[in-house]
């Protein structure tokens, strides 16, 4: 290659999808023609776990409710069509919220566009429930209290990856022995149910995690000790064959002990506990119509803005909107403390429904009818989904729960109070493809009746909601198994931050 001109070929692949405007820009810049080929790798729904698909569109809520841009809903509808092409037309479709209606409308349209070519597959999913985040804004704002939820809240899980401070993951011996300085790069972990221990821990209330970890530690030690008991070659061989598995479990146990310690440092702090207390007061509807002294103090202490906004939004929702005086007070405090540029952020929050002026009282009715507040919830052995927020049951999951049993007809009143239209649609399945109802004589009649419901969250789902749905699926009397698809995975900070207007001021010229 000495001195020679090497002609390079450039290929462009759009991930996760192609965009007209992007192509246009490339054309404007005059480089579009120089690509050997322009392709698209449409990711659609990315499988994150055996029961979770995410499109990883982090801005989806903002686009829909702030910018009135429903592109992400189009992609959601497309991905649902793909899913149906693979797993059969889903016979029953339910939905709540404006975006849900949009998606169902678009799906109907797409079906028409296909010109009657329907997937010739027996449906493997029985129900589709499409929930618009707008229907339940409160849940993602509250602090999640499951193990995975807390990891997400504190360290931000991104595409099932989490980066953690490395100090905790160096064993004592390593600390002593290594002469090199300790690693400063954050340590990366992949969190999913492939890790046996994590699968068990992820959905537990954090208060129950300690007990499980120590019990596991005991059993694993006991199993390691079996080698002393092994006398014959056969027994030894049996032990050795188990060894890789045991070592895996032990390694994972070490990791999760460390992660739990990191989480505990935060959950034991005054800031966390005080904030949690404040949230609980608000969700219980205590003094929600006044300026909350804790929030006031947070502002005065200049705590992170997203935390403050999160609390104010909770109060706004639990009070069905704030009185103008209270709202203006908060807004003024924020502008004076954090800067005038946040006025746009506040305006964004008002536009997207998080902050509202005082409106009709609905929260109390919904809270009572849907039993959102559960006293004395059992965190160790839960009997209700409310354990995921230690006493608050996410409305979104309650809607799914009521849909499965006894049906939405029983909560018509609540559904009317919630924003956006309700969707109930039956998609006809050709006779030959219908699921055969297990006959009375069939031995499977009790087993095979488990129905599969796909819950599609538009605008994001929290880890705690996932935990709650998994909890419902495990209930013996539930009769419904859940698979979750979502535009993205949210938690309060990320949701609020996505709505913040990021202004980068240029430096003022001092002259």
């Amino acid at each position: 290659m000495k001195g020679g001109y090497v002609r390079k070929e450039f290929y462009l692949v759009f991930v996760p999808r192609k965009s007209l405007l992007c192509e246009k820009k490339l054309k404007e810049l005059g480089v579009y023609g120089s690509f050997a080929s322009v392709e698209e790798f449409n990711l659609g729904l990315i499988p994150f776990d055996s029961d979770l698909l995410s499109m990883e569109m982090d801005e989806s809520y903002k686009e829909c409710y702030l910018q009135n841009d429903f592109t992400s809903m189009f992609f959601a509808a497309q991905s649902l069509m793909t899913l149906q092409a693979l797993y059969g037309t889903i016979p029953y479709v339910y939905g709540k919220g404006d975006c849900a209606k949009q998606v169902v409308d678009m799906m109907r349209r797409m079906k028409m566009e296909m010109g009657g070519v329907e997937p010739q597959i027996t449906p493997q999913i029985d129900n589709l429930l499409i929930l618009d985040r707008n229907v339940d804004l409160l849940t993602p704002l509250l602090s999640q209290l499951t193990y995975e939820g807390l990891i997400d809240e504190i360290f931000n899980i991104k595409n099932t990856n989490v980066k953690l401070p490395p100090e905790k993951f160096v064993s004592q011996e390593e600390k002593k022995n290594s002469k090199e300085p300790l690693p400063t790069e954050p340590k990366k972990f992949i969190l999913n149910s492939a890790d046996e221990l994590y699968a068990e821990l992820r959905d537990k209330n954090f208060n129950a995690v300690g007990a499980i970890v120590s019990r596991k530690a005991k059993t694993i030690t006991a199993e390691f000790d079996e080698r002393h008991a092994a006398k014959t070659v056969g027994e030894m061989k049996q032990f050795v064959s188990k060894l890789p598995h045991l070592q895996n479990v032990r390694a994972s146990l070490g990791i999760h002990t460390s992660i739990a310690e990191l989480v505990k440092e935060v959950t034991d702090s005054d800031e966390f506990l005080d904030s949690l207390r404040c949230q609980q007061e608000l969700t219980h509807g205590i003094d929600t119509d006044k300026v909350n002294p804790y929030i006031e103090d947070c502002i005065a202490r200049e705590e992170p803005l997203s935390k403050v906004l999160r609390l104010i939004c909770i109060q706004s929702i639990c009070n069905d909107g704030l009185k103008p005086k209270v709202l203006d007070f908060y807004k003024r405090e924020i502008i004076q403390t954090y800067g005038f540029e946040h006025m746009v952020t506040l305006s964004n929050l008002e536009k997207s429904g998080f902050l509202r002026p005082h409106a009709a009282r609905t929260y109390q009715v919904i809270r009572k009818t849907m039993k959102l507040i559960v006293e004395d919830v059992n965190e160790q052995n839960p009997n209700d989904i409310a354990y995921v927020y230690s006493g608050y049951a996410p409305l979104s999951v309650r809607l799914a729960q009521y849909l499965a049993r006894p049906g939405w007809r029983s909560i018509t009143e609540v559904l009317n109070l919630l924003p956006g239209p309700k969707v109930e649609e039956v998609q006809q399945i050709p006779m030959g493809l219908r699921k055969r109802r297990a006959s009375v004589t069939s031995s499977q009649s009790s087993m095979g009746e488990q129905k599969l419901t796909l819950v599609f969250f538009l605008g994001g789902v929290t880890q705690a909601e996932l935990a709650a749905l998994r909890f419902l699926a495990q209930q013996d009397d539930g009769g419904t198994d859940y698979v979750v698809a979502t535009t993205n995975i949210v938690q309060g900070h990320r949701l609020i931050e996505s709505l913040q207007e990021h202004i980068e001021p240029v430096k003022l010229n001092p002259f």
Partner: protein
Amino acid sequence: MATADWNPLGEVYYRKCELYTMEWSGLVDLAKHTVAASSYGGPIALMKDDSKTARVTTTIKPVISVYNAAGKLLSQMRWNSGTVVTMGWSATEELLCVQEDGVVLVYDMFLTFKKTFSMGQEAKDVKILDAKIFASFQGTGIAVMTTSFRIFLISNVDSPRIVRLAEVPGLNEAPNCWTIVVSDRQARALVAKGGELYLVDQGGQFQQQQAELSENAGDITELAVSFNNKYLALCTKNGALWIGSADLQKKYCEFNTSSPMKPQQLVWCGNGAVVALWDKLILVVGPDKDWIKYNMDCSVHLLQEEDGLRIIGNDTHEFLQKVPAVTEQIFKIGSMEPGAMLYEASKEFQKRNQKADEYIRMIKDKLEVAVNQCIQAAGQEVEPGKQRTLLRAASFGKCFLTDYRPELFVNMCQMLRVLNQVRHHSVGIPLTYTQLEHLSMPVLIDRLVLRKLFGLSVRICQYLKIPDAEGRSRILAHWACFKVQQKHEDEEKLARAISQKLLDVPGVSFSEIASQALEHGRKQLAVKLLDYEPRASEQVPLLLKMGQDQTALTKAIDSGDTDLVYTVLLHLRDKMASAGDFFMMIRTMPIACSLYIQYCRQQNLKLVEDLYYQEDNSLEEGNCKVIRSYTLEHLEERAKLLEDAMNCFHRCKNEFAAKQTEEQVRLLRHQRRLEDDTGNSYADLSLQQTLRKLIGDGNHGHVEKLRKEFKVPDKRFWMLKISALAEVGDWSELEKLSKTKKPPVTLEVFVDACMKQYNRTEAVRYVSRVQPEQRVKCLVKVGQFREAAEAAIENKSEEDFDYVLSRLGLADRQVAETVRGMRGQLMARR
């Protein structure tokens, strides 16, 4: 007798059967025409040839007529272009007319002009002598020989790419004959120069080839390549007919026709025999020198087919073929084949003769073979009567078989039914079963559609249960496309007729039909049809093309496909004269508006602002101005823009925002003044940060001023002051502050502020003064766990004690032990 028309040719037999009595009989004399017929039962094109009539050449242009294979006139036109050298058909049944100047004109079988292309500049400059149309591996190819004896060739008329072949050395007069041989995915030309043969290829190579001919054979006058390009036949001046392989390596025979005259046509019958035509005499020569002679009543035209030869005459259309092996097995006199026996048995059975049983017994264990033979033989018959007797025999044989798979039988019945339909003289496609197998059913249906036989093709599709998407829908779409071209029909009626027929048919592309209508200048019809198109992605671009902007936009929005909306929006923006008009158009559509704003936001914020202004959305306009103000680096500009924003907020009655903006402007000016006074920078700080900095600097006068002006609440101000003082370590000022009467904050705040600066000594000072109920907490904060525990015990509060316990993780181990031990005391106190 089934074998009556069989003629033996060596070991095999040839038979000639009539396909049609020509409809043109009495009207057309082939001798006066140039004939071009298309293989696989395709149409026949005739052009009146003046040279053949040997009259005085006139300047009147010839007439070209196209007939189906049964001689039914399909279309006719007067040629009004240059002199046609060669006519021929492409694989997709398009008529190719190669002109003297190398221009190729392409027509469909109804003589509708489709396209034209040239065979290159050289061909145009020097004219061409001759052209050959051949079946290439890619489709249909054309080769021309120019007057300078060069050969130019294209392999596919659908995408003409001209290749020049190598030159034949020393060729300075027109060769006697030449032909194209296709092998190894390449077309080469075989050129006869005197008695020598040259094979020239596309890579510029030539190769002299020698046919093993007897010495006095003379020059080669005619060449013929077989249908499969494997065999070659050639004629010489002295009447020798040589048959061999296409690469001339192998010679099968040399037959002396003893005719000094060059045959009019030299062609192959299938791949098994060579046929030469002299006016009314047809000579069939087999590879072993066997021969058959046929005398015809009139001059005829011969056409090679895959499995035989079509003989087109003035009155009849005949088919010459080798008797298929299976037919021979059944019908040959004295044949003992199982099929023949079964056929006999079936015949006897019809006659109610017990001999039937005898025959069946004879072939009992070969019955399956017999049935298969009868089925296959049925396929080889043209006459429905013969097909029927053979199928009946097969069906009879089937009765004696217990687990015979019926597919073969059913399939043959279906194919024959279709074949008999298309062979009907009104359709005129005389396909044999073998040809159909090669052509495939979808292609046959396409050919019916090409002939505009929509009804028949739909019925065939339904009969064969071809899925709608491949069959019926596609045909109906073609029908509609054809329909919209009929200018005499009323648009309204047509739109209704088309939609009625097509609406319930899945997978019909209305956009395609509409675009066809548009091409024929029927815009209104196109608009109407397009309304039925369910796929927005197809519909919208066409609507734009027709200038139906508003509809295009609505449809794009309905589809939810953002890219589609952008396509329309950007198209409109570029098209509309003024931005105002454009915005007026989209303003009624909120989705379009928002998307356009999104687009502008990425381009230029000022543009967004203008849009909001036009939309009378003062709140958003104000917000935009606020955001944009941060991009300006001069204070006055920034202040000016913020004042504009303030007016916007006033306009939309958002007094709160207006007030805040106004305060911000004031703050900016204060900060500038402070900068001028103190030399410190306060730019881009919030009020709180400004105050903090001022407190730190000890500039209490200004602090007080700002505090009053901006009405900072007491409590926040105190907390700010406490933490600011602690930050700069002004402990004495802090203590002074703590002793003020009625402070709006508790002493805990002081403790916190000190601890935040890690100053425990200072913190402890305040702990002693803390209210009893906060005491425990504050003691824990300063790390005095034991004291905290004691205080808890004093308060008799288990809750407090537990709090202390929960915080012991941070304590010294010894202290922790002590505290844990104190639990007993608590119990004792209670």
